[in-house]
């Protein structure tokens, strides 16, 4: 029998989509039964209380969680978020119910062995409820008490060789797409650089010294499956500089209907026979393609590498061999000063160990932002405030037309004194010799 009646939540058990209510209920039942005689280190009925407090929110139409206090593990400034229930008497099992962020592995590949170990640990020392995964990418452990934080950290580091992720004004846990591991579009090894930079910047990740949060995200190609361009302070998007490789026979295969376009992504409807002119050539944003006499031709110079043709004909077209990434900077969600997409800073850079050139750009950006950024000012907001020119200056990158979608339409150019012959110091009396008052 459930500890709390949940008539509202119960209505979320029907329907085909996996019900988190059903899952929580099975966890509550499992803890109640405790078949393996676990010495639960947080209240055995905490999941019951979690359901109870959520039901109350469904009734009241508002949350019943309070601000966290400052909790954490020794020497780290992030990775743990305090959370308290605002009805602790009614729901003592979740009175203290902190979150821990566990740094996910690259590509979110797991062995079951590792996962089962985490499950055992979290059932034992926490609620057994997780997010797989949080928005930034971490595994999220939802709900434990303050005394368990160090214990969990100790077991993670000593037994599982596993660290926490970031939270607060620091480098947030970097994340990546599946990349070269299982995707033919990957222009660089997202997992390799994600891991390398995560390791290199452990101090920045664990010890908040930044004006605000800072995110790296790694997309292997311009399809941007991890949405780096919308949410990373530095977004690494794979690209290439040479020709798209064309297998003309495979092109013919698509044209002849042998292969389904877009890898079969449109199989749910009869869109008619594949029309390469209409579906590929005409949709090319730079109009750099031709299909004539049964041959496909791409004018590489005019290609903007949007991926459409490659997506439509993955057997026939492949990314070029001169690969690297574009770095875009400043993306963020709307809070506080409006959303930003990443703005292109480095059109092309090779992504190769030891990534020194990339690190130089990162560190130049951080130096500037740590010097000039206000409290809670994201990089994008600093760029807006001080200007894209300032970013170029601080990163020592030459302005190129690729930096802009279009040149400025206002003519308000802030010239600097050293750019103007004769400088700015003038003599009013000399001026008045030629120009009477």
């Amino acid at each position, binding site marked *: 029998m459930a500890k709390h009646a949940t008539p509202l939540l119960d*209505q*979320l*058990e029907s*329907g085909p*989509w*996996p*019900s988190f209510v*059903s899952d929580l*209920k099975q*966890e509550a039942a499992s803890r109640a039964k405790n078949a393996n005689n676990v010495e*639960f280190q947080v209240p055995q009925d905490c999941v019951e209380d979690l359901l109870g407090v959520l039901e109350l929110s*469904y009734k009241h*139409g*508002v949350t*019943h*969680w309070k601000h966290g206090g400052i909790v954490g593990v020794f020497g*780290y400034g992030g990775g743990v978020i305090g*959370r308290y229930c605002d009805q602790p008497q009614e729901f003592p099992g979740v009175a203290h119910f902190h979150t821990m962020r566990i*740094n996910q*592995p*690259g590509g*979110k*590949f*797991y062995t*079951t062995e590792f*996962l*089962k170990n*985490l499950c055992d640990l979290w*059932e034992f020392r926490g609620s*057994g409820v*997780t*997010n797989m*995964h949080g928005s930034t990418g971490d595994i999220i452990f*939802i*709900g434990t008490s303050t005394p368990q934080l160090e214990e969990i950290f100790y077991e993670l580091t000593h037994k599982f*060789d*596993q*660290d926490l992720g970031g939270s607060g004004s620091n480098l947030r846990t970097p994340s990546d797409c599946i990349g070269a591991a*299982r*995707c033919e579009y990957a222009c660089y090894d997202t997992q390799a650089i994600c*891991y390398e930079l995560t390791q290199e910047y*452990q101090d920045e990740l664990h010890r908040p010294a930044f004006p605000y949060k800072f995110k790296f995200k790694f997309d292997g190609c*311009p399809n*941007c499956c991890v949405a*780096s*361009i*919308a949410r990373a302070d530095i977004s690494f998007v794979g690209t290439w500089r040479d020709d798209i490789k064309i297998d003309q026979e495979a092109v013919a295969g698509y044209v002849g209907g042998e292969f389904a376009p*877009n*890898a*079969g992504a*449109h199989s*749910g409807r009869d869109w008619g026979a594949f029309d390469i002119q209409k579906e590929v050539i005409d*949709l090319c*944003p730079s109009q750099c393609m031709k299909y004539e006499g049964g041959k496909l031709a791409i004018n590489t110079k005019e290609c903007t590498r*949007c991926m459409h043709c490659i997506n*439509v004909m993955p057997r026939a077209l492949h990314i070029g061999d001169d690969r690297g990434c574009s770095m875009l900077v400043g993306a963020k*969600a709307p*809070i*506080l000063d409006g*959303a930003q997409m990443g703005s292109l800073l480095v059109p092309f850079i090779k992504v190769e160990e030891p990534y020194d050139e990339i690190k130089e750009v990162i560190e130049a950006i951080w130096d500037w932002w740590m010097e000039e950024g206000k409290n809670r000012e994201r990089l994008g907001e600093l760029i807006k405030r001080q200007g894209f020119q300032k970013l170029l200056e601080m990163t020592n990158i030459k302005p190129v037309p690729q930096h802009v979608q279009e040149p400025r339409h206002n003519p308000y150019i802030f010239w600097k004194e050293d750019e103007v012959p004769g400088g700015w110091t003038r003599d009013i009396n000399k001026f008045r010799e030629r120009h009477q008052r």
Partner: protein
Amino acid sequence: MAFISSGYNPDKPMENRITDIGPQKYDKFYPPVIAKNKGKWLYHEIIKPGVLVHVAESGDEVYTVRCGGARLMTVTHIREICEIADKYCGGYVRWTTRNNVEFMVDDKAKCDALITDLEGRKFDGGSFKLPIGGTGAGVTNIIHTQGWIHCHTPATDASGPVKATLDELFSDFQNHRLPAQLRVSLACCLNMCGAVHCSDIAILGYHRKPPLLDHEYLDKMCEIPLAIAACPTAAVKPSKVTVGDKEVKSVAVNEDRCMFCGNCYTMCPSMPLADQEGDGIVLMVGGKVSNRISMPKFSKVVVAFIPNEPPRWGTTTATIKRIVEAYAAGANKYERLGDWAERIGWERFFDKCELEFTHHLIDDFRDPAYYTWRQSTQFKF
């Protein structure tokens, strides 16, 4: 419930301390077929919704079965996933960026048994545990934030509306009939932990009442200058207030300048915004992050407010369904929702989706607002 030590000694926190080790290295977790063929994949194909094959230069193949899952997941459920992975996948499994679970096998033969197994697993309440789908020109899993289950600033729940929406859109999770992929996301307040602002459809929790002021405790619980500085519209000012017979330091809010963002509450727990009548849902549409064909773009607000309707948010899910159907009926092959709306014009989008246009949808936030007004005589009646 006896306290059991991990070995950690609170009196000597630095003793044997291990820190700054980062995550496990990625390649320890690669299935063998992945480890072998990494960087050498030739092409892929979606055999049917939710089932992909990737073919390597070596001739190797990897079959992936993608399953939706609530991102809120218990260890019991994860253990079941592990059990499946142990049985069929040599003990490997992965998650996607959008909270899907992927089971991979290196042989088509193994695939069918796996699929049959997955399809048969249901929770006691009747829902699928691991429904197969989420590929191609359909709807995939909804990324979302915490909502009422664990967040202190939400204006709506997350897991509930997501479950209700995906029940409504379930057939499109398992089908490829849409003109292009359709990404739905939810953020339970406009802090947008989930960065939903570039989604085909974004469900956003929104407050509509300025903060309550707990004057008696405000100065005790908060740093007033931080609360003031937190306000992006400079609506919060210091003030003195008489509580009972005492004058206390507190703040005053210029309510006409409040846009209900909750930044003050983030800095100061004595300024709560949440309210049953005030809180609800904003719908935004037409964003994308891919650079395919058109450039990435932000989602636009098309429904200013829908009340929270727990437990199943009926108006929200019905409105989303209406938008999806209008898109499915009107867009060209490969055309994302936002590209469709731009092609036909937003005035036509409101017609086709039977949405009311209200003054709230006109941008009035700072200088760039101007660029969203119509500076042309080109429009449709």
